[in-house]
Each structure stands twice: as C-alpha cells, then as structure tokens.
C-alpha cells in the first residue's frame, strides 16, 4: 500500500557486488574486499546476495594503480565490444570479463548495485559518487547513508558531465555507487579511513535490506556537488608542472573558492589566483593519480536534488 501516489517502483536489489582494487594501490577497498572474500558474514543481508570482488588483481599484486591502463576508465562501449584477444591491454580484457560476470552493462541481467571502493590523497572525507541525477534508488540510498552516519558527514559528488564523465567499473550495474574516502596516501592503509569506509558500506547494505523487505522511502532532497570543470596545473612547454596547489587551497575540498582566491603557488613562490566568474566548490584537490590526467582539482556547483518516494515492485 503506497502512501505516495507517484512512488517510483524498482525491483528488489538482490544482486549486489562490492568492488575493491579497481585501483591496486587504494588500500582500504583492497583490504576490506580481501577480508570479506575470506569471511563474508559482515556483508550478508536478508534477501540480498553480496559478492565481494577484487577487480584488478594484477595491479593489487604490484600495488600500483593499474598495469596497462586505468581500469576505471575502461568500460566504454568500444572496449567492451572490442574483439577479444591477448593483444588487448590487460585492463580492457579485465573489463570484458567483469562485464560478463556482473553485466552485461545496460542489460536486465546486470547486477542491481555495485559499490566500487576508492581512496584519494585529497582531503575529501567520505564521498559517494553518483552517476545520474535521475537515479532515485541511489539518491534514496545516499540520503539514508547521510542520515545514518550523522553527525559524521558524507557528501555526494554527481558526475554526469558530458565530457568529464568516464566509463567506470561500477557502471556495469543498474545502480552504480562510487565510494571515495580520503585523505590516504596510495599504498598506505590508515585505520581511520578503513573504518569510515566499512561503516558506509554497512549502512548502504542495511538500506538495501530494508528496501527489499518492502519499506517505502518517502520523497526527500539530497544535496549534491555537480562536477562542472577540470582545472589543470600550470605547465611549461614540456608539460611539466610549474606550480603546486596553493597552501590556502590545499586540503580545502568542498569549501567555496571565490574569484581572486589563491589557487596555485609556483615553484619560485608566486601566487596564481582563481579567475573564474563565480564561486565554485573544488574537490579532488591534489589527488596523486590525476597529475597524469592533467587535473589539479575539479570544480563543482552545489545543488539540491529531489528524490521521489521509492518502493519495490509487488511481484
């Protein structure tokens, strides 16, 4: 019996996966997933089958982000439909395998939810990454998690930018959820970051269990930070960076950056100011892996999304 006329209906989310090691040197996810592969009691819920899975074992072995190419950019239609063969980069082969196991992407057989566990060197705290503003299931889940972990905070980053959106490992699922926790250096495991990630997962799985049991979630609003622009480091003609993130901006992820605020500091000590037209909210500030992606940080804009009521289909 729905108390809301226009509640969105979804199938039960019975097939859930937790991905770790999509980047082999982001240790919280690698460690948690390895732990759960051995003993999955902690992630089991009624009416849900949760599969912990190491997505890039060779990169985990090397403790490097990737072997040939970034797995978390490899799930494009071209890659997934490329003729199979040993000459394909390791991560493209791996993307095809993962797509077969957890997808196919976009098909009714695909997994319902995939959580992909990441760490960042940026001071982002706990961040949930949402790939679509119209995914009311995910919006409700994120709202649930935010409430459950209060007063600790967990922010939502929305990336549906036509150019900056990329084809993630989790995108194989119907409801892809990225989880990014920092700051933590690559190759390092910090207990506080590890525990924070573990708690978010607990609440996320609780939400799915409640949903599957038939609980109806009333309409709500979710504050998100929408990816708006990529900002690169100043570079010389050879492509080498000539400046660092300014000390006033370093570690200030999610805080307003206003026109005229210091943004970079050159290696000889000069300050470069932000010249954009209005206030933005930078994040992924000084992420180690993004030097090679020509990104010092991304700017976002705050907005409030409306999530409609949801409940499961009566079968």
């Amino acid at each position, binding site marked *: 019996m729905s108390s809301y006329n226009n509640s969105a209906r979804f199938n039960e989310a019975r097939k859930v996966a937790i991905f770790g090691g999509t980047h082999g040197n982001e240790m919280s996810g690698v*460690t948690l997933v*390895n*732990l759960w592969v051995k003993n999955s009691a902690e992630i089991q819920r009624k009416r849900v089958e949760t599969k912990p899975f190491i997505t890039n074992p060779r990169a985990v072995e090397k*403790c*490097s982000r990737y072997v040939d190419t970034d797995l978390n950019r490899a799930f494009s239609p071209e890659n997934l439909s490329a003729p199979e063969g040993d000459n394909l980069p390791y991560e493209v082969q791996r993307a095809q395998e993962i797509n077969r196991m957890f997808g196919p992407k976009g098909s009714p057989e695909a997994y319902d939810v995939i959580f992909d566990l990441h760490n960042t*060197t940026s001071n982002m705290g706990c961040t949930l990454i949402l790939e679509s503003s119209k995914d009311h299931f995910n919006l409700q889940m994120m709202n649930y998690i935010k409430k459950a972990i209060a007063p600790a905070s967990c922010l939502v980053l929305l990336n549906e930018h036509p150019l900056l959106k990329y084809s993630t490992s989790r995108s194989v699922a119907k409801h892809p959820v990225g989880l990014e926790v920092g*700051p*933590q*250096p*690559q*190759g*390092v*495991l*910090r*207990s*506080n970051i*590890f525990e924070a990630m573990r708690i978010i997962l607990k609440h996320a799985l609780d939400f799915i269990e409640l949903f599957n049991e038939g609980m109806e979630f009333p309409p709500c609003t979710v504050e998100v930070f929408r990816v708006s622009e990529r900002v690169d480091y100043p570079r010389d003609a050879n492509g*080498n*960076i000539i400046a*660092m*993130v*300014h*000390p006033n901006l*370093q570690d200030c992820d999610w805080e307003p950056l206003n026109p005229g605020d210091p943004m970079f*500091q050159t*290696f*000889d000590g000069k300050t470069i100011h932000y010249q954009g037209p209005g206030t933005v909210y930078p994040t992924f500030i*000084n*992420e*180690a*892996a993004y*030097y*090679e992606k020509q990104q010092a940080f991304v700017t976002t804009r705050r907005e409030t999304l409306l999530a409609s009521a949801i409940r499961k289909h009566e079968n």
Partner: protein
Amino acid sequence: MELVCLPRLPRVAVCGGTHGNELSGVYLVRELLRVQRETSEKEKEEEDKKSMSVLTVLANPKAMQRCSRYIDTDLNRCFTHAILNSPLSDKPPYEMVRSRDLNALLGPKGSCEAVDLVCDLHNTTANMGLCFISYSDCDWICLHIFRHLQRQMPEISMRYIHFDVSNRESYSLDSIGKHGFAIEIGPQPHGVVRSNIYTTMKSGVQHMLDWVHFFNSGTTFEGGLVEVFTMVKNIDYPRDCVTCSITAAIHPKLQDRDFCLLHPGDPMFQTFSGETLRYKGKEALYPFFINECAYYEKGIALSLARKKHVMIPTVRVQTEQEEQANKLGFASEEEE
C-alpha cells in the same frame, strides 16, 4: 669549550629523485637547475666568488619519469662498498648501474676525490616533520648544519636520526660524500607535491647552503647539546603466516604520533577484526617512520629509536696553513 678545526667544504651536492615518487626533492632540484640555467654569466661570476660549488643531481631519472620509487631495485640501498665494487651481471638492474654512475660523479665513496657534502632529499608518508638521517652521531658538520636549521626554522619540528652503520655498510646515496645526510620530510603521499612540504624543504636546503658558505668563510660556530635519535629496531605488521598479507593496521592512537614516546603496553596495531595489539618491548622508545608507504614491502610498520644528547664542539674551518699541515700529516700517516 673545545674548538675543532675542520677542512673546507668546497663541493656540495644536492640530490633529489633518488626515489622517483618523492616529489618535493624532484621539483626542488628541478627548480634549482632552472635557476642555474637562467642565471646570467655575470651572476655566475659572482657565484664563483662564493666559497663553494653546488652540484644539483636528479638521481633516478627513469623512476621519476614513471613516478615510481624505483625501476628494478631501491637505488638508495645500492651504495654499500660491496655493491659498488662487485662485478656487474650481464643484465644488471638499472639502479645498480645508476649507483655506479653516481659514485663516479660524486664519489668515489671513501676517497679524497669525493664531494665534501651530499644532501639527499626525501619524502615520507609518516608524520615525521623534517628529519636529518645520518650514519654518524659524531659528524660535527652534519650536526652543526642540523642545529643551524633548527635555529633558522623554529616553527618546523626537526629531528636528527642516527643509523648506527659503518661507512662500508652504509647503503644510501648520501654515504658517498665525505659528509652526508638525507633530509626526510613528511607527511606527504608519494606522487604528490604539497606546497607546505616543498617550501619547508626549499628553506632547509637554502639554510644548509648558507651554513656551508658561512663555515667556508671562516665563521666560528659554537658547540652545545644536540638531541639525537639512534635507531634501535624495526617492527613489522602482524601478518598471515600463509599469505604474508598484513592482518592489522597501525593503531589509530599510534598513527601520526611519530617521536611521541611509546611505552610498553601502549596500543600499536588494530587488527581487522578490531582487536588492539600492544607494544611488548621492555623499554619505552621513540617511534618513527610510522606507516611509511614504501616500507610495507620491506616488512617495516614502524621504527623505534632511543633518544640521547650529544655534545658537539665549537667548529671553524681550517686555515690554509692548517689544511696544508693536515694534508702533510695525513700523507705521512698513510706512508706508515
């Protein structure tokens, strides 16, 4: 107080990129090279009147290019007497070749042609502030430079770490100079350059060069007590006896508390099932290199040191006559 007169230090080397993903040193040495390139000829003449030459070296360019610690093996373990002097295999690891090149450029280790001072720049993910790491607790040059930096940069927490290893067995790049030390600054993730860490390193290097210049120009430096942390032992993570993978992380109460005295019974690790493991040693010691990224593969979760105070004498540079007399003395000693 006792006065010790020491030989001049005409040749100083500043090295970065010995570990290719420790970016403060990489970018600082690049910046020093850029300034050298852009310095006009006239300014260079002025520079020449200074009391010393400064050699800036990017030690492991291939690892820098990949932004990884090393290519085949850790370069900063390749400078023992044995490794530098044993025959090379047919396909030697890149770093073994590189260590010989650097020894030819800055050494040879243990010889009188070696540069006078090698300062090698490093970063750590541990919350160690600025540390000097040296193989000697009686190298008055290193200790005086350390004290100079302490005085010039009072806002920076600074420690002198002593690894008690003989010169033949010493393995790091800075061991090939007549005097040498590493400057280790953290916390900074590998593959990242943080402006605060870079700026600290830059001023540290500047003050180091200033001190050498003052010393060479005849300034007398008063002696006194210096706090020294002598490395006692390393502690590994608890590991699964079959897979060798770690089964615990550094305890939140120990994380980031480098150089805070660790007492017997204090929490050290937290297992993934939430259990606290405690420090079982009998002696309270000072932890450092807590949760350094590169030491997981070396089996080191943290190192422990004992603190002591070293009385360092007043020093000044030898006069030319003293230097001559010393050389003669040295030569006659060698003949004996």
